[in-house]
């Protein structure tokens, strides 16, 4: 785990039970958390805005629901809007209305794979509680590209199906209880902070 310094983005996927898990996670992050955090939470088409507002109450980091071509900035929390796929596209997000992937739009796998493609070994993927297996393939792709995988300990998850699938797909992932994930991300992010003053070959 964590063998490559210079993490550039954290992508997080969750479904059933996600609101509580995400609240705990962002509450644990310091106000100077230095990486962008992109969240994909399965939810209904009509739940516009609400998730972002609820998370904003838990953190000093700026939370926003993503609009197309929104720049990706450090220390911001980005939430995928309902009914769109969210792709990491270089220095910004692109949205698509391509068909749902295994009944999900946004799809966690789609976001994770785009992050792995755009940021390679600079990607950290986190799979939290959920009742389906979305995210497992995406997390595997992140790790195959040299990135780092984190999975909520299924025993501490409201529904363990999603993290258990991710752990099966990525046996090397760090498996942590929910309360410890924020501190773990902070550790990884501090490595990233060190890398920004490093040699230029890290930047792309």
């Amino acid at each position, binding site marked *: 785990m964590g063998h490559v310094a210079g993490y550039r983005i954290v992508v997080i996927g969750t479904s059933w039970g996600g609101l509580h898990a995400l609240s705990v996670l962002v509450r644990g992050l310091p106000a100077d958390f230095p990486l962008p955090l992109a969240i994909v939470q399965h939810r209904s088409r009509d739940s516009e805005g609400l998730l972002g507002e609820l998370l904003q109450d838990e953190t000093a980091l700026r939370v926003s629901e993503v609009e197309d*071509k929104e*720049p990706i900035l450090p220390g911001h929390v980005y939430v995928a809007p309902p009914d769109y796929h969210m792709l990491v596209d270089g220095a910004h997000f*692109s949205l698509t209305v*391509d068909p749902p992937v295994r009944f999900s739009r946004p799809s966690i796998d*789609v976001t994770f794979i785009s992050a792995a493609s755009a940021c*390679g070994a600079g990607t950290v993927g986190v799979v939290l509680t959920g009742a389906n297996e979305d995210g497992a393939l995406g997390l595997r792709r992140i790790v195959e590209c040299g990135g780092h995988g984190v999975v909520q300990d299924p025993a501490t998850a409201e529904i363990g199906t999603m993290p258990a699938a991710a752990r099966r797909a990525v046996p090397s992932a760090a498996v942590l209880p929910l309360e410890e994930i924020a501190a773990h991300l902070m550790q990884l992010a501090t490595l990233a902070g060190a890398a920004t003053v490093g040699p230029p070959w890290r930047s792309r």
Partner: protein
Amino acid sequence: MTLALPPVGYDPALERLEIELLLEGVFRHYGFDFRSYAYASLRRRVWKRIEAEGLSTVSALQERVLHDPDVMNQLLLDLSVNVTAMFRDPSFHAAFRRLVVPVLRTYPFIRVWHAGCSTGEEVYSMAIILEEEGLYERARIYATDINEIVLQQAKAGIFPLNRMQEYTENYIRAGGTRSFSEYYTAKYDGALFSPALLRNVVFAQHNLVTDRSFSEFNVILCRNVLIYFDKELQQRVHGLFYDSLATFGVLCLGSKESLKFSKYEDCFEVLSQTDKIYRKVK
């Protein structure tokens, strides 16, 4: 849609080079210009075609596309077709009735451009709104798309029957004043929409990337089309829309699109921030 993934270990820099070469070849040989599409979503669609052809590299797809026009047609569908729905985002359509329709009432003649209309679901939606508001007789909707095949589907007006429940709910939440089933006839697994809804619609092929403005409009609708373009091309198309709108003309974008990052932002005032309805003011 499948995940459409390159094999593990595929060099991202080489992949990008190959995709750029593919797009250059497609443009120079066939004239379709996808060179300024947003990379991340384009990449997904290219890999979908690579998988469907049973290939494993972008270069192999390029060879097939350049030598076989049928494969080019398939790729064109993959790259250009946008998924849509009737009354997608009901709150937008409700806001259109509330904020835009009262202004349109003051016009003797209303010209609407529906840019990137795909298979036509939202063209029928707009025709229904104008009909119910008593404005349709003095309106003309110009519905355009880059892709001739989807325009044929739009003209035929047959949509999957299994989506009608969703569309009916959307229609009600969008402020529909009648019974939605009045507008179509169910047949086998299709819903055939009343051809009368098309009496003031003109379908035409138009390419937002390469074609110019073709008239002056009171309303331009272009929802969830520009999200497939990169930022530079988006900006160029914002300029095309600006040039094509009459003063106080209305521009409607998708609910997660924005003029916020565009140099044309100051030329428009916001009528609805949440539903992305703008009015040209200078």
